[in-house]
């Protein structure tokens, strides 16, 4: 039964984001559009026959979405590993010719698939999911899910320097979108399913439910939303349970407990924060520079860009650094176990920035999470190894440095400081590391923000011609409060037991057009001269004000409340008294509509 909630004005996430990703003509994205049906207003009032149906189905389906996303992400990861083993072999050694050929051939195949069959599969998947939420009513086609799975698996298995997490996020969101559409959910619910599935996909990929939930809130939804939080949590937990059933419940990385016995060690972590902030800025600027230039090239070059990027990655691998290929989780593990010299680690970090920049800018499907973690881990391990060599008195653990480095890059590059802290805790299962993580992440975040005002996904959004909300933008916003528009009390304050005649006399004496009336129980009422006149016309002059006032009262408003909280009341009341929170009934000042508007205009 078609509930008729989908509007004819709905378009698809793929149609726009696909076009933006690859500048595709209309016919190329036609396949990814949903069957647009004319609006059919239901003859039956759904709210009457099943008022809570959507809400409850939403919760039940969140669990199914979590399970299915978890299963798909497990299969996705296996597919990447199989393809890597089949194409690149078991061991990546420099000097092997297949290190060059495989990424080029895989790049050609992926480019052809993206151009001919799955145009919406290009790119990371985070912004596409976000666009689905805010622009396309949560619509992500099943074809996109399939395309993302296949093309990302081929690209990552073929050695492109990208990660599986962002595609997993989009696969999860796609699964949620498909299922919710099949169940005929309302448009409002359809929109909310995208972040639910995104959290499930990311949680399964990372084996980190809290980080996934926080990331979806910080980056995908862009604001705290109570409406979706319960379902996001349910789906993330379900998918992680599924993933752990297959991969085990061990944390992704195991490092020894970190005990900061010497405060100088925190200084060392602070150095890591500064260097991480600088590296994130370099990485961000490189992507911000190359990506739009490649996207503005003629369309035929899209068939060539991915293989050429593969050639670049392959050459880096061929000439001594095959570790930069693929997501690189094994290499991160090796770095944590101190298997590299600090110079090698530093070289790997820099080359990974280069390889990821060319891989991602070419439009190859794949994510930014794993490369970010890789670069952070290499930088952290490099600094840790260096300090361990030159400052043997400090009890430095290379693994801990690598782990903190991951969080540092995550916070500074993706601009998700809260997620970064929990991500480190979850992937290591090590709470003892929290102090260095918070310190280094905060420093890196501040350094990165001062050098590069916009978060990377925001940069991509603007490059794609979209305008989506982000928590980073909210952090930048100056929130005005009532205290910013507050004026000292300048109107007469009259007691409610005053007569109409006395009140009029008071107004005449002060030449005021408006006045405040103090009522019993710390309540307030504001009145204009005109309202007083109309009351006086129908009542005796000796009538007490309290007896003729309308029943409503001015709501309690305090100086710390947002400035816009006054707006709904200014239509009714000519002036609003702003009260002191500590002293009930005491007035801090007043605001009028003109005060509020002039304060907004001043910003």
């Amino acid at each position, binding site marked *: 039964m078609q509930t008729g909630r989908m509007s004819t004005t709905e378009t698809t996430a793929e149609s726009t984001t696909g076009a933006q990703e690859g500048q595709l003509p209309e016919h190329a994205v036609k396949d990814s559009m949903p069957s647009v049906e004319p609006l059919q207003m239901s003859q039956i009032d759904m709210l009457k*026959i099943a008022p809570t149906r959507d809400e409850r189905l939403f919760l039940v389906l969140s669990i199914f979405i979590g399970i299915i996303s978890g299963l798909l992400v497990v299969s996705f990861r296996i597919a990447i590993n199989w393809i890597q083993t089949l194409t690149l072999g078991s061991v990546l050694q420099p000097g092997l010719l297949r290190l060059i050929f495989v990424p080029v051939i895989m790049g050609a195949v992926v480019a052809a698939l993206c151009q001919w069959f799955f145009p919406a599969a290009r790119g990371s998947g985070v912004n596409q999911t976000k666009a689905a939420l805010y622009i396309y009513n949560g619509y992500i086609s099943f074809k996109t899910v399939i395309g993302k799975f296949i093309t990302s698996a081929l690209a990552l298995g073929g050695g492109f320097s990208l990660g599986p997490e962002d595609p997993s996020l989009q696969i999860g969101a796609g699964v949620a979108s498909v299922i919710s559409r099949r169940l005929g959910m309302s448009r409002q619910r359809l929109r909310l399913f995208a972040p639910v599935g995104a959290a499930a996909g990311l949680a399964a990929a990372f084996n980190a439910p809290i980080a996934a939930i926080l990331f979806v809130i910080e980056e995908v939804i862009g604001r705290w939303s109570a409406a979706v939080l319960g379902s996001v949590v349910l789906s993330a937990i379900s998918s992680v349970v599924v993933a752990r059933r297959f991969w085990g419940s061990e944390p992704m990385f195991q490092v020894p407990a970190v005990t900061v016995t010497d405060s100088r060690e925190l200084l060392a972590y602070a150095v890591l924060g500064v260097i991480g902030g600088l590296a994130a800025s370099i990485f961000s600027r490189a992507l911000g520079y190359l990506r739009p230039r490649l996207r503005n090239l003629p369309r035929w070059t899209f068939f060539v860009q991915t293989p050429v990027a593969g050639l670049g990655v392959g050459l880096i691998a061929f000439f001594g650094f095959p570790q930069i290929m693929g997501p690189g989780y094994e290499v991160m593990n090796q770095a944590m176990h101190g298997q590299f010299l600090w110079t090698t680690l530093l070289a790997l970090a820099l080359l990974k920035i280069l390889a990821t920049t060319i891989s991602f800018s070419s439009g190859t499907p794949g994510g930014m999470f794993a490369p970010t973690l890789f670069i952070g881990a290499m930088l952290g391990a490099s600094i840790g190894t260096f300090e361990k060599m030159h400052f043997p008195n400090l009890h430095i653990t290379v693994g801990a440095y690598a782990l903190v480095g991951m969080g540092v890059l995550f916070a500074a590059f993706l601009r998700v400081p809260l997620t970064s802290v929990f991500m480190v805790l979850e992937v290591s299962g090590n709470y003892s590391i929290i102090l260095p993580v918070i310190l280094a992440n905060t420093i890196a975040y501040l350094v990165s923000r001062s050098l590069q005002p916009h978060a990377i996904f925001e940069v991509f959004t603007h490059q794609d011609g979209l305008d989506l909300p982000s928590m980073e933008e909210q952090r930048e916003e100056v929130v005005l409060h009532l205290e910013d528009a507050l004026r000292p009390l300048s109107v007469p304050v009259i007691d409610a037991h005053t007569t109409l005649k006395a009140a009029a006399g008071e107004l005449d004496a002060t030449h005021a057009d408006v006045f405040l009336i103090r009522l019993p129980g710390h309540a307030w009422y504001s009145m204009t001269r005109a309202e007083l006149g109309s009351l006086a016309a129908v009542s005796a002059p000796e009538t007490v004000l309290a007896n003729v006032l309308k029943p409503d009262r001015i709501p309690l408003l305090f100086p710390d409340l947002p400035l816009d909280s006054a707006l709904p009341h200014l239509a009714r009341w000519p002036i609003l008294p702003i009260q002191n929170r500590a002293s009930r009934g005491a007035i801090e000042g007043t605001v009028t509509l003109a005060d509020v508007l002039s304060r907004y205009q001043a910003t």
Partner: protein
Amino acid sequence: MRTIPFFRASTPLTPAERSAKRHLVLQDTLALLSVFAVTCVLAVLTWLIFRSYSQHQSDAAARWKRRGEDALRHHNAQAAVYDLRAALGYGQEDPSTEVELADALAQAGRLQEATVYFNTLWEKEPGKGNINLQLARLAARQGQTSAALEHYHEAIYGVWEGDGAIRRRQVRLELVRYLIQQKRFADARGELLIAAGNDTTTPGLLEVAGMLAEAHAPSDALQIYREVAGRRPVEPQALEGTGQMAFMLARYRTARTYLDRALNASSPAHPLMDRALTEKNLRIANAVMAIYPSPELPQRERLRRVVRAYELARQRYLACTNGTAGQNNTPQNGNMQIQNSEQMTALGNRWQNARPRLTVAALMNNAQLEQTTMQLVYDTEQATAQVCGQPTGEDAALLRIAASPDSIDQ
């Protein structure tokens, strides 16, 4: 129990609405069932794929580990590094492979990488004996003595799997070899005495006794060799060791006894450690004992030997002062020459005051004379050895006695 209705209607429904509601319930139930079915099918498929994948991973990990171990056995450390890294890439956190990889890095000469890797393993398991041992070896190779000693001790007192006691003893003996190499003999002796207490088997004690000898602790070595030599069946190497240690300590009587027994007890099945040395030292011990005026000898025989030693020493002195005994060619500094010259002058005075001819009867009448005579003999042999070079024959035996006259009979 109160149940919450899935579909709650606030106002009575019309027949058409009731029908629509039934239809909706049916539709949602079927949809949820179909989602459930899809989930089940997907779960089965994923499980099958995962099982195949896991099997492949563990097979590959085992295969690469075997290759790495083979490469290590064939001293191809560089290849072993690649193979073991591949094995670790397939298998999650296999501690034995990690240690082998670190070992391969060390064998490949990549000492810094190996040290960093072992340090990381150590951070995870600081009490692990094997990791500490490898770190000790790496530190020793890099000349970091204090770090090497620290890790050796941590290895000795660390955790070992299975054959803990044996491995700890092996590590202790390795530490001793390192200490001997570093000429820290006192430390080595202490470790060896502990090792001797930890393994009281014959081979174990023989090994410790041999190392005590290397650690300049012949007295302790003699004690252990002697204890083992007293066991049945008799171990020729214990007899030989006892004889050699006694010889080293100038206990020529004991040395002669044990070296002789060792030669007699040895056979192709039980060879001596150094037969030639044993024979040579036995000859020397016999020569010493043949000339030594032992207090245990009958008086006449002892005094006869004193007279013989006196004559030999006198001739040695005269030959040395007349230049016929040859001069010592060993380079000597000025102070040494002056000292030797003064020593020879003093010795000359003593020989001038000595009796031109000493007899057994004279010695029998003067008990003090025997002692002063032998002192003159010993001083003469030692002084002439310094000035005119090492003596041979009976003079050489007298010189040995002069070095430690009280221990000969021990």
